[in-house]
């Protein structure tokens, strides 16, 4: 066991002294000798934080990080990192940049030159020793990043979304090279590779073990062993089957078929879905905050939700979430956020990993703009978060609340979310629905003032 995270949690204190945000919760993870481990998750799930915890760039709030079974101080020197944005120094040549990796090895000038030459040959950049990063393409810059990491002769080569800043062709090329590197006699001392990515196909192509983590907070959910033989064929049936398996695991995680929060029902000890317990024949309203979990609102702008409905309208058959993601050209995390948002509003259904438009969704799409707003308003008023917000606003003097108070409360209610981002989405939806508004200059949130149009819209809206 080369690196191990044991019961690791990581929290950051909130911006402007707000409530602390927990990014990682009780992570148990290990990098074994002789494996390629991929960490798969959405952006913001804390995967980069896990990498930095392994490297010793940051410390866990709880739990412990072990290297070869024992804790270490400072930076883990058995590791080297390849960064997402290459992290090359613009004022150093390729040669000098790679030389940075040799700092900890204390070689003399001749040996250093040999090492650098060997690394550059391995990654295919001989002849470029005196070039500056500005003069290289993205793929070449990342190769320099690899060379730098390799000359440091790490045990574990860590890569933080190394191909996400590259175009598709260069990325494919480099991926194959990385696999060949690890498999071949390659570089001395390299035992394992740790890859952080949000690209499912990439994880299946490269890794021998795939760990899936959820987000908000980051938790280890699934571990899938990938025993496909190298070299892997992207077009083979087994590859596709494994990709499907990963898909299914992720969708079960992010778009559960059972809603986390039963809409419109007050939970009691009797169980979810049951009518509230009656006392002497009369229904007793139970305080709604007891034991209920408020679901967060995904970060999806309104026009993307509408765009999703329009795509569904155009296509003849049901669409799979991942095909959708490829089609709209967005990272699957973003796509899932949009789909989830649409689902929360009752506009789509997500049986397994398909997306299907609901009756309400068809109606919404057919309606004129003003009616859409009313429908939207009705939908979001079914969400606990908006109910609480409007209740607070109605209770406040003048129907206005200071933004900082709202942020603080959001931080308390949803401790795993970034209050600022959540607020942003809340206001965006609220403005579309003409329900709440936000005054940037005075820094207050307030109820949208009712106008004469609202009654007409309400009349038109009823089907």
């Amino acid at each position: 066991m080369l690196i191990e995270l044991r019961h690791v949690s990581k929290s950051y204190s909130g911006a402007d002294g707000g409530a602390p945000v927990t990014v990682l919760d009780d992570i148990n993870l290990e990098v074994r000798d002789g494996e390629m481990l991929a960490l798969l998750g959405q952006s913001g799930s804390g995967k980069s934080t896990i990498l930095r915890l392994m490297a010793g760039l940051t410390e866990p709030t709880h739990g412990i990080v072990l290297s070869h079974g024992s804790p270490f101080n400072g930076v883990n020197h058995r590791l080297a990192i390849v960064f997402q944005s290459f992290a090359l120094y613009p004022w150093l040549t390729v040669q000098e940049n790679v030389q940075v990796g040799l700092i900890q090895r204390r070689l003399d000038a001749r040996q250093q030159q040999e090492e650098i030459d060997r690394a550059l040959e391995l990654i295919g950049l001989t002849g470029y020793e005196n070039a500056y990063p500005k003069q290289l393409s993205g793929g070449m810059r990342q190769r320099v990043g690899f060379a730098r990491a390799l000359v440091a002769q790490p045990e574990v080569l860590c890569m933080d979304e190394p191909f996400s800043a590259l175009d598709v062709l260069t990325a494919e090329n480099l991926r194959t090279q990385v696999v060949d590197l690890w498999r071949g006699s390659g570089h001395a001392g390299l035992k394992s590779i740790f890859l952080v990515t949000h690209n499912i196909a990439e994880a299946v192509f490269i890794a021998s073990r795939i760990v899936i983590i959820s987000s908000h907070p980051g938790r280890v959910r699934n571990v899938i062993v990938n025993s496909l033989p190298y070299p892997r064929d992207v077009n083979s049936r087994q590859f596709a089957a494994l990709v499907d398996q990963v898909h299914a695991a992720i969708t079960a995680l992010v778009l559960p078929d059972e809603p986390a929060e039963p809409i419109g029902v007050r939970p009691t000890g009797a169980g979810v879905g049951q009518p509230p317990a009656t006392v002497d024949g009369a229904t007793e309203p139970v305080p709604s905050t007891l034991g209920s979990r408020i679901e967060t609102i995904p970060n999806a702008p309104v026009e993307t939700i509408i765009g999703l409905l329009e795509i569904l309208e155009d296509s003849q058959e049901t669409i799979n979430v991942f095909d959708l993601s490829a089609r709209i050209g967005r990272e699957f995390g973003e796509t899932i956020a949009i789909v989830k948002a649409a689902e929360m509003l009752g506009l789509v259904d997500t049986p397994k990993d398909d997306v299907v438009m609901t009756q309400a969704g068809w109606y919404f799409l057919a309606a004129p703009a003003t009616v859409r707003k009313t429908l939207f308003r009705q939908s979001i008023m079914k969400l606990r978060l908006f109910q609480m917000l409007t209740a607070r606003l109605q209770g406040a003097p003048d129907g206005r609340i200071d933004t900082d108070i709202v942020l603080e409360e959001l931080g308390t209610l949803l401790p795993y979310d970034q209050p600022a981002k959540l607020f942003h989405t809340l206001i965006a939806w609220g403005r579309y629905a003409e329900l709440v508004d936000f005054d940037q200059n005075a820094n207050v949130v307030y109820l949208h003032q009712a106008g004469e149009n609202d009654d007409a819209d309400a009349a038109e809206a009823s089907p």
Partner: protein
Amino acid sequence: MTARAYPQTTGQQVERGSRFGWIDAVVILAIFVTLWLLVVLSGDMRVRFDELHPPSLSLDVAFIPYYTARTVLRMFIAFAAALLFTFTYGYVAAKSVRARKVMLPLLDILQSVPVLGFLSITVTGFLALFPGSLLGVECASIFAIFTAQAWNMTFGFYHSLITIPAELQEAATVYRMNRWQRFTKVELPSSAIGLMWNSMMSFGGGWFFVAQSEAISVLNKNIKLPGLGSYMAAAVEAGDTRAAVYAIIAMVVTIVVVDQLLWRPLVAWAEKFKLEQTESKDNPTSWVLDLLRHSYVLTWLSNHVGHALGNVSQRAALLTSDLTQTISGRAPAPVKTLLRLAMWGLTTIGVAWLVFDAFDIATEIRTAMTGAEMLRVVWLGMLTLLRVLAMSVLATLIWTPIGVWIGLRPRVARIAQPLAQIAASFPVNMTFPFIVAFFIATNIPINLGSVLLMALGTQWYILFNVIAGAMAIPTDLREAATMFGLNRWRLWKTLIIPAIFPFWVTGAVTATGGAWNASIVAEVASWGNDKLVADGLGAYIAQVTEKGDQPAIYFSIVVMALFVVVINRVFWRRLYDLAERKFKLD
């Protein structure tokens, strides 16, 4: 990917000098002349000095080159000291969050104290340090110039250090650079561009105080160090127009030469440290740098000196590794506690000493000055404040339209901006005597005239910042405005004023800060036997400094510093926040 993309020649990789050319003769000559000058001039700095018989200054025009050389040497020594200060102070403030909370406000206060204030406080100290030699006076003068240059550079350096991209720092940590390596390979290069620009501006700021620093008329002493500034002061006292004009010409020539031979090449060279990864079209160029790149001697020198420095740096790196700390940049525990104790100890001693000193000064002031007099000083401060306000309003009204006009035309801007920067460096107080003569002739009261004098020195900051702001307006916003047929007034209201607002704020802050400093030379102006004294804090400070009235000096300087600091916090800080929040174009 195209076959073997050859590195483009961008000026970075222009063919290096491989043969001896005429430029090499020039370079060798220049090196020898500089060395000879350094030896001769520094020898002259240690001449015997008797306070009762201060060295006399000749008004002979033939002496001007020598005096100019002395002045330039002083400026560069002060600049070297300022650079050292910048590196240490800025580095500590950037690395330690706790220290930052004290160091930054302290720097703010130091920035608000007028240069003359520093001079009056330290001159006796320096004189005592080197009794009997002119070196003491030189040190005082150099220190005064240092205070005119250092603060801005420190702020700039601090800012560049804390805005280094996180991944560059992380790579340095992962690949185990120690502090020295990190400083030389990551932090210093990242801040190079900002540092060059700041140095250029700050060095220029020093010219303004050259006259004050060299013709030391503080505390009843009247010492004129050999230099261009005191030459000018002597010319003014004697009413010698011819000498004054020659002095001004010499000053202009010096500024242009230093700008072209030193600053422009440095700024152009620093382009290689740009953090953005794409080549932009508007790189600063320098004809001198291009010439120098063809020099065989310099290429040879830079390679060998570069190698030697590299080796020294490596040795230093290994040494510091072994001596002080672990690779993560965190010192081992006992060293850390020791350092912390030492720091706390020093700080408490320092604070205690300052507090006692402050008490002493306060009692001194209380006994020496009456309440009425103190109020009068504050009242004078108000008057100067009015002048500063008037100056900023007028300068804004006049120069903003011009600046926008220039900024919207890139070709004009390319010529005009460096000119405006040079104008900002030129010590306008050298021309004051002529203007004062003009005032006397036309009976313009100095109370109003001093506004003009203050403006002449500082309005350029507003001008070239507005130019920069207009240049930064994105083309698509301008095109949209044209498409929608916005008339002149609407265009200004909706686009131009909001877009240049953040830049204007920067320019106005510098201009008003400079105006306070300038008030000391603007509110007391003399030509020959005529002396015009305005009612204001600057005039008061100048007068009491000359007389040597210590309590009054302390009090008035504190009052001026307070005015500047309070206005900064209450007014400028708010405007900065507003500019950040509402008017930032990104």
